[in-house]
């Protein structure tokens, strides 16, 4: 093209982030390609649809949420099907991310003081890959939680098809799993937005800055940058 024709500025990073992941584009790294983001948000949307249809049934304190859907009866009709949708979305997410989420022995440290140190911003671990131990544990907990919610939910949905004691237990499992899930999601959202600026962009735009990657996922950053340079040579 001739230099005389003014070109419409376009965003190379966002174009790259549609199909390719773990690549450097200018000052940015593509962290989540479009498919990853769509999968993530389909889980998020179905999860919150379940929360808003489930909470008014959980306790009348949250009865006002039922009005978002047209009443408690509508919530009761929607909730089980939204639960199935959430489970299916979670299943796709599980398969999509499992390769990145394999637990290494050192990830177990995240169950203990390491998580606290992380929250105090005291760690400067140079060996964090694409996902840190906390993120991996959250991934596995979310997978397990989705299975627990589905199975217990099915028993609550069809109470006459199962022994009464199992149905009673299912209420317990559904509630406990939801409570843990909800607490984890609150922290997940906090860490992904307010607590760590730049992170939310990885799920919207798909990219992060070099500085962000170096700070939060040093090994991932090194591997991608050096890998790209190797290919260039």
């Amino acid at each position: 093209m001739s230099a005389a024709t003014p070109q419409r500025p376009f965003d190379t990073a966002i174009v790259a982030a549609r199909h390719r992941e773990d690549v450097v584009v200018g000052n940015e790294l593509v962290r989540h390609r479009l498919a990853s983001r769509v999968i993530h948000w389909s889980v998020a949307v179905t999860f919150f649809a379940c929360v808003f249809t489930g909470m008014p049934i959980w306790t009348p304190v949250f009865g006002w949420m039922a009005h978002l859907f047209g009443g408690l009866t509508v919530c009761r009709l929607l909730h089980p099907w939204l639960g199935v949708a959430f489970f299916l979305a979670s299943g796709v997410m599980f398969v999509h991310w499992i390769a990145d989420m394999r637990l290494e022995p050192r990830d177990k440290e995240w169950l203990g003081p390491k998580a606290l140190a992380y929250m105090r911003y005291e760690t400067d671990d140079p060996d964090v890959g694409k996902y840190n131990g906390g993120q991996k544990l959250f991934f596995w907990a979310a997978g397990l939680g989705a299975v627990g919610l589905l199975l217990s939910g099915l028993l609550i949905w069809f109470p006459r098809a199962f022994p009464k004691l199992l149905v009673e237990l299912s209420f317990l499992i559904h509630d406990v799993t939801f409570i843990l899930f909800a607490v984890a999601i609150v922290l997940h959202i906090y860490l992904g937005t307010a607590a760590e600026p730049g992170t939310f962009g990885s799920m919207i735009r798909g990219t992060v800055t070099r500085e962000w990657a170096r700070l939060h996922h040093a090994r991932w950053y090194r591997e991608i940058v050096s890998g790209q340079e190797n290919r260039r040579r």
Partner: protein
Amino acid sequence: MSVQQNLEIRRSSGAVWGSLSGMRSVPTVSKYIDTTTCIGCKACEAACIEWNDLRHIATEQTGTYQTLPTLHAEYWNLIRFNERDFDGGLAWLMRKDQCMHCEEPGCLTACPAPGAIVQYANGIVDVNPDQCIGCRYCETGCPFDVPRFHQTTGKMAKCTLCVDRVSVGLEPACIKACPTGCLQFGTKDDMVALGLRRVDQLKGNGFTHATLYNPEGVHGTGVVTVLAHGDHPEWYDLPADPHVPLLVKFWKSILRPLGGIAIFGAVIGAFAHYTRFGPREVKGADATPERNLPEA
């Protein structure tokens, strides 16, 4: 079947905290069932269907005179026929099965829909179909396996103790129809006194284990039943010691409030963390990705 304006509500499902006024003082009412004088004529079954305008459903032959194997959303009152061989001979037992109108109703405890299950001041436990969401939690809460899910309406259905009749001073339809007087209706105190007198009589006649079934586990029922073989309530398809399931009470009254506090606590915790530690800024650069302008 609907809220009776002249009956105050003692307890309601899905109530955050009490919504009762408690101005009127009315005695708790009760049905009285004497299984020893029941002749199994099923007049009460017919009267129930007729008064409550229930649809006629196909009966099911189970090898006895029993109309259906269990209660049904269109069949709230069922005489259970049981035969038992025992040392003294053969017992042909008939018991009228319906909602027991528990003093502590497990269905109401489990129900999440505000006002869908209510206990009136006179002790009658009733369903308001317009509030019922058809979640079937009540089936798990009931220790007597009474509430039935209506497949076409998507609502729960059970005996209302003819609250519409009782609230205007009539006796329930089943009691009205009973030809032997084995069914009576009155205040709980009167029915218990009547039952205890009948139990004494039975004991005098050699039924040494006769009892009045009014289980303490649910703080008594609004249906008291005279059993000749009181040591074997299971012969009558009655649970020996019914309770509102402990798990139902636990998740309803302990776990859910605690869970709400935990979720709220997580939000507060995140806010406190942000206040104490602030955001983890990326060193030396603006965290917002710079837009990549086209290369020259």
